[in-house]
C-alpha cells in the first residue's frame, strides 16, 4: 500500500514538474514576444513623430514660406 502511494506521488510530482516547466517556457516566450512587439511599436511611433516633424520642416522652411508668400502676392494682385 505504501509503495503504491509512493509511486502515485512520484508520478504526480513528475507530471506536475513537466506541466510547470512547459507553462514557464510558454510564459517566457509570451513575455519575450510581447516585449518585442512593444519595442517595435515604440520604434514605429518614434518614426511617425519624426515623419511628422519632417513634414513640418517641409512646410516651414524658408524656401517653402517664400514660395507661398509669392503665390499669395500673385493671388492678391489677381483679385
Amino acid at each position, binding site marked *: 500500500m505504501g509503495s503504491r502511494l509512493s509511486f502515485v506521488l512520484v508520478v504526480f510530482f513528475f507530471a506536475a514538474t513537466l506541466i510547470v516547466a512547459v507553462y514557464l517556457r510558454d510564459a517566457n516566450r509570451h513575455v519575450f514576444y510581447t516585449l518585442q512587439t512593444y519595442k517595435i511599436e515604440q*520604434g514605429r511611433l518614434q518614426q511617425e513623430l519624426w*515623419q511628422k*516633424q*519632417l513634414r513640418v*520642416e517641409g512646410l516651414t*522652411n*524658408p*524656401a517653402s514660406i*517664400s514660395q507661398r508668400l509669392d503665390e499669395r502676392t500673385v493671388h492678391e494682385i489677381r483679385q
Partner: protein
Amino acid sequence: MKSGNDDKEIRIARDASVGGRRELTAIVVIMSLVIVAFFALAGRCYYLQHNLGDHYAEKCIFQQRAYLPLEPQRGAILDSRGRVLAASNQIRTVFAEPRVIKEPKETSTRLAPLLDMGAHEICRLIVDSNNPGCAILKRGATIAECEEARKVHYGIGIQYDWQRQYPMGRLAAHVVGFTSKDNFGLAGIEYTFDRDLRGRGAKHTFLVDVRRRPLGFCLADERDDNEMPIHGAGIILTLDATIQQFTREALLSRYKEFEAEAAVAMVADPHTGEILAMVTLPDFDPTETADTAQTHPELFTNRLLTDQYEPGSIFKPFAAAIALDMKVVNRYETIFCENGNYHGKGFGHIGEYRQGYGDLTVREILKYSSNIGMAKIGQRLGATRLYEGLTLFGFGRKVGIELPGEAEGLLRPVDKWTSYSPTRIPFGQEISVTGLQILRAFCMLANGGRLVHPYIVKSLVRSDGMVVDMKPSTLRIGYVIKPDVARWMVQDALTAVVNDSKGTGAKAKLEKWTVFGKTGTAQIAKPDGLGYLDKAYIASFIAGAPAENPRVVVLISIRRPNVALKKGYTGGTVAAPVAAVILEKTLTYLGVPAKGTAGESAVAQVRPYSEEEDDHSW
C-alpha cells in the same frame, strides 16, 4: 542390446557435437555481422560527423533560428540653426517568404484587395523570386495594409527600410548632395561624410518555433551578439537656410531674366570663413536624381568648386594689394594709363574696356577698372613678387573645403610665365580660379589681411550625443598682407568702386550700409585654349558690407548672359544688383546696425581707416 544402445548414444553425441558446432558457427556469424554492422554504423557516424557535420549543423541552425537585420538610420544634415536639410525616415515594405507559402495562388488572391495590387502580380512576385526567403511585394505600405497583410499567412512579413528625404528640396541641393536607393552618399556632403552619416548596422538572432515565431534571443553564437545598430552621426553645416534662400531667390531671378547659361553665388563670413550660402544654377531636385542622372547629369556639378575660369577684373584688388604691400607703388602716386592704348615689345597691346585714361592713382585704377594701370603695376611688381603674392592669397591650389570635386585652378610657376604674364595676370587673364578661391582671397582683404580657411561643416553630432567640432584650426598669427593695406583697400578703394557715381559697381550701393566691391567682366576662353569666344562673358561682382567692419562677403558670377537681349552683360550691370539684394536682406536678417545708428559703433571691431594713421610708406 547394450552395444545397440551404445551406438545410439554415440550417434546422439556425434549429432550433438555437430549441432553445437553449427550453433557456434551461427553465433560467430551473427556476432561478426553485428560487429560489421557496428563498424559500418560507426563509419557512417564518423562520415556524417566529419564530412557532413557542418552541412547538418547549418541546416539545424537554419531551422531553429531566424535573423532580423537592423539597418541604422542615416544621420541628418542640418543648417546652422538646426533646420533639417536631409534626413531619413522609415517606410514599411510587405514581403513574402516563398519557401513557406505552399499555395501562392490562394495567398495572392487574399492579399490582392488588402495591398491594392493585382493577384497575378503578387503571385508572380512570390513564384518568380530568386530568394526563397524574401520576395518584396509592396514598398511604402500603410500601417493598416501591413496589419491586414500579416494576418493572411505566417509567411507574409513586414520589413522596415530607410528613405532619404530633403525637406528643402532644391534650396541647397549642390551642398547637401543626394544618396543612392541603397543609402550610399553620391554627391555633396552626403558623399564626403558618407561613412559618418551611414552608421553601423546590426543583426538580431532569435530561436524560433516551427511557425518561425521568436522564442527568445539566441546568445550562443559569438558572432550574433544582438547589439543594437549605431545610427549615423548628424552633421551641422555653417549654411543658413534663410540666407541661402535670399541668395537663391535673387540669383534665380537674374539668371532667368538674362537667360544665362549658369550662375553661382556664395556668401561667407570673412572673419571665420563660414560659408553662409552656396548656390549653383541650374540646380536639381535631390529626390528625383535617377531621372536627372540620365537626362542632365551636368546639373549635379557644383560650379563654384569645379568651374575654373579667367576671373577678369575682380582679380585686380589682389594684384593691387600685393603691390601696395610690397611698396612698389603708393596710394598717392599716379600712374599714366596711356589714354587707353598701351603697347610695347614683349607684352603686345593692352586696351581699356570703356575709355582711355590719363594719370590715375591706384584707387582710381580700381574704381574705373583700368587694365593698363594694372598692367603697369604688374610690370613694377615683376613676375616673382607677383607670383609669391598670389600664392599667399591661395591661388593655384585647392581651398580644401569639405565638398567633393574641387578644382585647383591654374597659376603657372614663374618659370613658365611669358613676358606677357606680368601684364595680363594683374587684370585677371592668364590665370584660372574657382569661385571659392576668389571668395577666400576676398575674405582675406575684408578681414584685415588675415589668412582664412572657408569651411561648411560646423560640427558632427555622434549617435551617443558627443559633439565633434569640425571648424578648421586656423593660424591666427601673421598676415597675408599688412592690415593697413587691407583696410585701405576695403574702406577706400573698393568702397569708391560702389559708392562713387562713376564707379563700375554703383548698382550695388545701399543706403543703410557702406558696400565695397569690385566688378568683373571676363571673356570665356575657347575650349582649344586659342583666343576667346565671341560675345561670351562671365559677369561677376564680389562685394562685402559694412565696409567699417565687414560682416559678410558675397560673390556673384553669371555665365554667358544672353547678349542678344541687349540688357547688358557686364559685372556692374548683371551681377552687382544681385549682390545688393543679397547684402541688404542678409544684413537685415543678421541684425547688423545701419550706418549712423547707435548700434553701429558698438559692434565695430575693426578700426575704421583714417588719414592720420597712414605712415605714407606704401
